[in-house]
């Protein structure tokens, strides 16, 4: 009879068994069960090809993007403890995050992380394109990825307003003016002039898509609050759901990029 160590003792306690349903992954069946029964691993394939996870082949840019997204979520939640999205406080709170808060580098990590995430998303798409990994049956996941790219850029865009300095306000003024040119939905766009009955203007600066985005005609406090909610809650939620779909599809479509 083999000698029983401390590890074996811990593995037989009720606490351990209540957390881990399966024994050590010593055989093929248990290896699959351990992965499938773990909430953090069950989006991963139970078995994958060695070539699919070699760093030289894929660069792991999608994985790095996900890691940066998690880092941005953590630092972003920490920033929310100090930041108040009002015209009176927003600018000073950003300064305070650097000057008055221990580990004030958190804000810099968040900002640099945002830049890094945009870069890794592009590199990830570049690798997917160059290896032909967008081709059937993975074309749906490419579509999901394109939406995730747009949402990544929108996250960067909405976060740009929050420091509430001159750069932010005018950047969003310029950016939101693009919405003014949306066909039929923006008051400066093609088709807006058609939506006019006599003197009654149906698409004006008081009801077009830009007004909806800014909650006003100018970049003001309502716009700051709206961008804050979009940046911290709305878009991250959508991104989180789509990331789950993205990863699940990677598994269903035969791994990361290897030939099927």
């Amino acid at each position, binding site marked *: 009879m083999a000698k029983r160590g401390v590890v074996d003792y811990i593995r037989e306690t009720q606490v351990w068994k209540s957390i881990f349903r399966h024994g050590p992954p010593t055989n093929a069946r248990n290896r699959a069960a351990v992965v499938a029964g773990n909430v953090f691993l069950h989006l991963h394939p139970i078995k994958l090809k060695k070539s699919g996870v070699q760093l030289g082949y894929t660069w792991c840019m999608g994985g790095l993007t996900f890691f940066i997204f998690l880092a941005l979520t953590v630092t972003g939640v920490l920033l929310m403890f100090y930041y108040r999205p009002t015209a009176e406080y927003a600018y000073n709170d950003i300064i305070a995050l650097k000057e008055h808060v221990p580990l004030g580098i958190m804000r810099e990590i968040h900002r640099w992380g945002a830049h890094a995430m945009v870069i890794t998303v592009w590199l990830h798409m570049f690798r997917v394109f160059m290896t032909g990994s967008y081709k059937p049956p993975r074309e749906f996941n490419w579509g999901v990825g394109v939406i995730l790219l747009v949402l990544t850029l929108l996250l960067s865009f909405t976060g740009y307003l929050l420091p509430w300095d001159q750069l932010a306000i005018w950047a969003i*003024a310029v950016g939101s003016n693009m919405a003014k040119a949306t066909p039929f939905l923006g008051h400066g766009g093609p088709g807006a002039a058609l939506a006019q009955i006599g003197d009654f203007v149906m698409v004006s600066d008081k009801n077009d898509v830009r007004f*909806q985005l800014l909650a006003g005609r100018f970049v003001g406090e309502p716009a700051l609050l709206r961008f804050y909610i979009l940046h911290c809650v709305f878009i991250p939620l959508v991104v989180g759901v789509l990331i789950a779909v993205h990863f699940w599809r990677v598994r269903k479509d035969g791994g990361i990029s290897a030939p099927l």
Partner: protein
Amino acid sequence: MSDDVKKQLNRREFFSFVTVGWVAFTSAVAGFLTLIFRYTYPNVNFEPEMDFVAGRPNDYEEGVDERWKNGYGVWIVKMEGRLFALSNICTHLGCVPNWLPAELKFKCPCHGSGYYQNGINFEGPAPRPLERYKISLNAEGKIIVDKTKIYRYEKGQWDNPQSYLKV
């Protein structure tokens, strides 16, 4: 047809129930989404009004007056016997230019568009001159600026009698 059979739905009745159900469900979802959409448009707008009373023509000296810039986004300019209300929105991408009295020009901080005192663009990426707003006198002889009416130089509208006051 016996009573036992009549207690069950036939195929046609079953589908009519399904249709009613789907119509009700679809309209409920559509109505809910409409409400959500409408929710994003606030009922009350606390921004400045689009028209305002801007004193009397005699209150203004020759040149550019900046007193209404912060509140209403308008420069009142008096030059060449005319008084007009100039928009402070850059025609390039919508930033707010600054009036530089020493250089007698409007200069946009975003991308460097420059405008003469009369609003004509002469440098930077701005594609067209600044817009002018409708300006008129009320019964008391006070100036009314109406920002909902826009007069554009490139459309030849600056000679429209509603776009300026003779002084």
